[in-house]
């Protein structure tokens, strides 16, 4: 029997729970090296030209782990959840559903000898993990519980770090604190300890300046939202400019909105103690602009832009990989919302050729514009067009 060495593509800081879970289940696991321009270039060279950026980065991840002896790749795409009428990443019409198959084809064409476990493609994720690891259901559920809790704590810390970053007195203090917090999580495997872990305490010592930050909502494609190297570290840029950022989606939210199964969905919601807006509410908010699902999180982008407006945010950033099917479709709608509500929305699309300088210029301009608007107290319409 050949010894399996596993890997999983990068996705923000989420490698921490994945790695933890793999080790708890007794797997040999390699974390891909951090994403650099080289990773992206490598992935783009072997991927189909027209595919979206996340795919290219993922292929780059795989290729960079091959020399560490990786022979098995784990990927998650949820084809059971979501549907034609509801959207959702893996189950709907979005290209994400076919990622698993296309990755296998690309790796085959390259000639890499790797096996794939595409979780979520079969009827039961738990069963797939059982086949993969040879462990019992109970142990898998216990591991999953720790992983999901960790994942949520990471998200909360990231959210908090965005808030502190915008008002920190000494540049870099928040980044350091976040790193420390992530380190603590990486070394914790006990659910009870995680439960007692207070994400606020990580940032408690940071000195903050007396200024009111701008508040910017971020909507768009999931991977671009959570993987900072794919979006040119846009949150850090915004933080330095004194703007705090709030993402409309995080991994646990994305999973909870379209859970792999009803029971798992309920369990996860209970572990992380979190409520997400019901789908019917999202549908209702988006309805004046969009009456059908356009797959992926397109409808969520529309609804959440309006939600951000109602919650008094100063502007919205829309991030998408170039050619993203759902997000490109809703882009004209976001533009219309921006006009109707007199609400700044900046849409940025990313591909493998993007450079940080161009993005920085646009972000700086965007922040200047919304700051000016705020200072002048420029009108916020309460009703569309009104």
């Amino acid at each position, binding site marked *: 029997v050949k010894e399996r060495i596993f890997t999983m593509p990068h996705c923000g800081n989420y490698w921490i729970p994945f790695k933890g879970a793999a080790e708890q289940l007794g797997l040999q696991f390699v974390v891909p090296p951090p994403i650099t321009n080289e990773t992206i270039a490598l992935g783009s060279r072997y991927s189909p030209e027209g595919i979206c950026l996340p795919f290219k980065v993922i292929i780059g991840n795989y290729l960079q782990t091959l020399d560490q002896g990786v022979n098995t790749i784990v990927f998650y795409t949820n084809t059971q959840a979501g549907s034609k009428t509801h959207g959702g990443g893996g189950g709907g*019409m979005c290209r994400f559903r076919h990622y698993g198959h*296309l990755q296998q084809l690309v790796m085959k064409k390259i000639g890499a000898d790797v096996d794939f476990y595409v979780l979520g493609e079969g009827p039961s994720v738990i069963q797939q993990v059982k086949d993969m690891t040879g462990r019992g259901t109970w142990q898998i559920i216990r591991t999953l519980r720790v992983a999901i809790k960790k994942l949520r704590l990471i998200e909360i810390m990231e959210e908090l770090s965005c808030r502190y970053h915008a008002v920190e007195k000494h540049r870099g203090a928040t980044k350091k604190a976040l790193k420390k917090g992530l380190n603590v999580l990486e070394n914790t495997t006990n659910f009870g300890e995680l439960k007692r872990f207070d994400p606020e305490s990580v940032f408690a010592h940071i000195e903050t300046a007396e200024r009111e930050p701008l508040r910017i909502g971020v909507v768009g494609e999931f991977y671009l939202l959570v993987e900072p190297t794919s979006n040119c570290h846009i949150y850090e840029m915004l933080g330095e400019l004194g703007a705090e950022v709030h993402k409309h989606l995080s991994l646990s939210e994305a999973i909870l909105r379209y859970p792999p199964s009803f029971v798992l969905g309920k369990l996860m919601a209970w572990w992380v103690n979190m409520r997400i807006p019901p789908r019917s509410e999202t549908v209702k908010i988006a309805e004046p602009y969009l009456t059908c699902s356009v797959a992926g999180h397109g409808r969520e982008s529309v609804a959440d832009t309006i939600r951000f407006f109602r919650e008094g945010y100063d502007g919205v950033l829309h991030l998408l990989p170039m050619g993203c099917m759902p997000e490109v*479709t809703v882009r004209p709608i976001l533009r219309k919302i921006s006009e109707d509500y007199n609400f700044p929305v900046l849409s940025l699309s990313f591909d493998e050729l993007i450079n940080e300088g161009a993005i920085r210029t646009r972000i700086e301009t965007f922040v200047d514009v919304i700051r000016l608007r705020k200072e002048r107290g420029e009108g916020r319409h309460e009703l569309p067009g009104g």
Partner: protein
Amino acid sequence: MKIGIPRSLFYYKHPRLWVTFFEALDQEVVLSPPTNRTLLEAAVRYGEDESCLAVKLVFGHVSYLLDKCDAIFAPAYYGLQPGRYSCPKFLGVPDISKSVFRKEVRFLRCEVDDGQFEPGMQQLARSFSRDQQKIERAIQHALDSRAEYKHKLHQEYRQQLASEKPKILVIGHSYVLHDAYANLNLLAKLKDRGMEAITIDTVPPVPHECFLRWDFAYETMGQLQEVLDKDIAGAIILSNFNCGVDAITVSFIEYEVEQHDIPCMHLIFDEHTGEAGIITRVDTFVDTVRMRRRA
């Protein structure tokens, strides 16, 4: 009522179906003209810049129809086969038109899911007529015309297979294959060079298992099984720049074609209309095919 049908996207898939349906219900149908310079310019103006050319062209055609009819027809094709689905960009057309043209545009919808046309047609027809018999007749008439069109295509396919000329298989969405202006007259160019261009939509579908979920992709993979064993001299894949579906399916199609040792070329179209580049590539491809046949 005057009903406008944009000559783009689904029209090329079912050119007779909807026209027959509305005419059988005594409605007047206004069809936009085949894509031309003016429509293409409108498409570039109204279309979202990262959409594929076909989706931009819909907005070009809709802009032409806006003041020429009372309502514009855009069916919601969720899926043309059980368990399959179409492209999400098509579903958004009515909603996005509202945002793009900045006015209320009346759209007629007909939802087609799992290849079931009738429920949607029933519902739509009721807004024109209360006469149930007439509705039934119109639906039957329309579905017949669709079957007839399919039959005609398959017949064409059999005739083409019998031809002596080198046969080139042209693969692509029907709205790319048959919009001659947008694909720079590719089919005619092949014909001029003495080739028999077999378009993939004429090939009878083969039922098969496939993980690809898009209608087009699923159907094409089946048709390839049927046609690649025949005497095919070369294959050309046409797609639009930034077509989301093709970004994935073309890899699989190419793989399939290469397995049969057939030369394969992938041409990508956008709104540029310069023909020089395409002529060079077609000439080269035709030469390659000829040389292989001689060898």
